[in-house]
Each structure stands twice: as C-alpha cells, then as structure tokens.
C-alpha cells in the first residue's frame, strides 16, 4: 500500500487525502468565521463607544436635574 508520513506517522495515501480535505474544510470554515467575527467585533466596539457616550449623557442629565 502506498503510504505517506503526516507528522511523522505513516498513514495510507487515501487516508491522508481524506484528512487533508477535512482539514482544509475546517480551516476554511474557521477563517470565514473569524473574519465574520472580526467584522462583528469592529461593529461592536463602535456601538459600545456610542452606547458609553449615551450613558454618560444620561448620567450628566441626572446629575444636573438633582442639582439645587
């Protein structure tokens, strides 16, 4: 049987092809997901800064309204 080494382990060529296909799929999915998450994270930081400003404005309003 034709064999190849993957990480120092001898495995059959067909197993190696299947493994590399599965790995490629997982890596591709991972990269796509990471990019999606990165976009979401950037959007999130923008929204968080905006929300913080809004909260500060509300806190200031409250402070002013309780002033004598």
């Amino acid at each position, binding site marked *: 049987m034709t064999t190849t080494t*993957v990480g120092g382990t001898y495995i059959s060529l067909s197993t190696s092809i299947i493994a590399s296909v599965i790995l490629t799929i997982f890596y591709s999915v991972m990269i796509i997901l*990471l990019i999606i998450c*990165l976009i979401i994270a950037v959007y999130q930081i923008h929204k968080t800064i905006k929300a*913080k400003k809004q909260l500060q404005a509300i806190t200031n309003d409250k402070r002013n309204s309780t002033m004598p």
Partner: protein
Amino acid sequence: MISVIVPCHNESGNIQKTYQTITNQTLKTIQLYFVDDASTDTTYAEIQALPQTKGITVHALKTETNLYRAGACNLALKQVTTKYVVMMDAGTTLEKHALEHAIKTLESNPNIGLVCSKAGIEKNGKGLLYRLQKLEYANTDLSRMITQNNVMISHGLFSATRKEILEQVGYYSENMLLEDYDLTVKVKQAGYLAVFSPQIQAYTETVKTVKQLIKQRYRWFLGGLDVLTKYGYSAETKEDIFGHALYLTFFMAIMGTLIFGFTFNNFQITYTNIMLIPIALATINYVTSLIGLAFVENLTKKDVVIRATILPELLYCIFLELVRWKAYLAKCFTKKRKW
C-alpha cells in the same frame, strides 16, 4: 395611575423591601398587587400586614397551587384596571423615578409595547461569584443599550406595558420557562416595539451559590431554546437563532481544527499568519470589554482587576458554556420542563 405586579414565592423578608421601594417612588398613585404564589413561609402574612398609604393601594392575592411567575402575574393582570402595568420581581429595588420614566417612555410613542429597565446588582454582595455576575449584568445592559429600540428580552426584573397590549396578546404563556422572552416575542409579533430605557434603574440580588447559578442559567438557556422552537424563524427570533448558529458552527470548526490539525501536526502548534485574525479579534474584544466597564454600577477596583486580568471571566464563561451544553442536550432529548 399605574399598577405594579409583584409575584412572590417564598419571599418572606423581601415584601417590606419591595413595598418600601414602591412607596419611595416620585409617582404617588399606584395600585400594588402582591401575588403570593403558594408560598410555604410567611409571605402572605407579610403582604396582608402592609399598610394602605395615601395613593398606594395594596392588593393581596394568593394562589392555591404554585402557578409559577407567569400564572401568578396573569392572576393579577386580569384584575388590573389601570392603563399602564409594571411587572417586577420581589426583592427588586427601584430608583425613585423608575415608574415615572416608564410611563413617560410608554406615552412618548404609541408603538412602544414593552419597556424594560437597566438591571443593576445591589451593593451588598461579596465574593468572586458576586463580582462576576455584576460584570455579566453590566454586559447585558450594554447590549440592551446597543439594541435600545428592539431588545431581545424585556426582562422580568422590571417591565412596563399597557394593559390593552397584554389583553391583545393573551397575557403571559403559562407553560414557558422563560415567560418574559415569550411575552416579548408575542408583543413584537403584535406589531409593537420592545425598548430599553436606561433612565429606569432597577437593582436585583445575584444568586449566592454555584448550584443556584447552574439552576438559574440552565432555566434561562433552556427557556430561550423553547421560545425559539415555539416561534421558529421569524423577525423576532432571527437574531437569537443567528447567534446560536454562529456559536455552534464556530464550536464545531474549533473542535474539528483542534482534533484534526493537532493530531496530524504531531501535537504541535505552528505559527501561521492566519493566527493574526484571532489575535486581532481577542484584542478588539478586550478593548470593548474595558470600555464596557462604564456600564458597571458601583464599579470598584476589584471589578476592574477581574476584567483586566481576563482569566476569572474566561473561566466563568467556560463554566456557563457547560451549562449551555447541558441545556442543548436537554432540548434535544427531553420534553419535560421544570421551572
């Protein structure tokens, strides 16, 4: 005038506190409904002992069997005669303008069907578990602030609405674990908005033990999944469904990459440029979480240390993920629900 409904199950000790927070409100004409949901302690006696003050009428209701939160609220809601209603938990304390703000928000736009408050944690807690929950609640407030005009859940801690809307949607569903999420979906489907009002501040107590935390979160996760399967994919549930889908896909991709990649790479991790993406992601999330500290009520140095050192919150997150998986498995393999 406004009605406030407080369902209570074995809340002895919290009745007086709730009554006090209502009498301290700037709004002075309130119909206060306490519903004792088959308590086995002195809750009902404590409710009956409450004085009737000027402007605040106390109604003491009692259920014969345990109807849980939804059933207890429905019992009172059917007796409400006012236009506006607030549902809140026993033991919750409110900032003195809370009811006034709730009415103002509902009056500001007839399309608003539900208004929920900020959910703060009371100052009196101690320990790591308390602080982790405090930070977590602040994160939830932050996400509510971001989705201010379309919150996913108008929580049971403090939600205000109009009586006519509740009649229209058939009140709370009594067979759901997460009756507040279910009500939010129903109100949105009826064409109303569920909004968050950061001016309304409500404070609650955290659960004290890990066992209680597991029970609470398990109910939240499983209850959320029940709502999603009840209503399916719709405009009201799509955000939550997308979140679950992204989480599960990510989880499988990470596990697959670890198992296959790690095994076939002789159990070694080799650096590739692709790793810059998760590093960037982690950095952005870290910065976001530091900015999010602004939403923590009564922020202390200990809270900042916990957030800045990452590890405690990371472990807490992993712990909650395990509870989430318990809920996923229960959703797949069980049908019985216990509140």
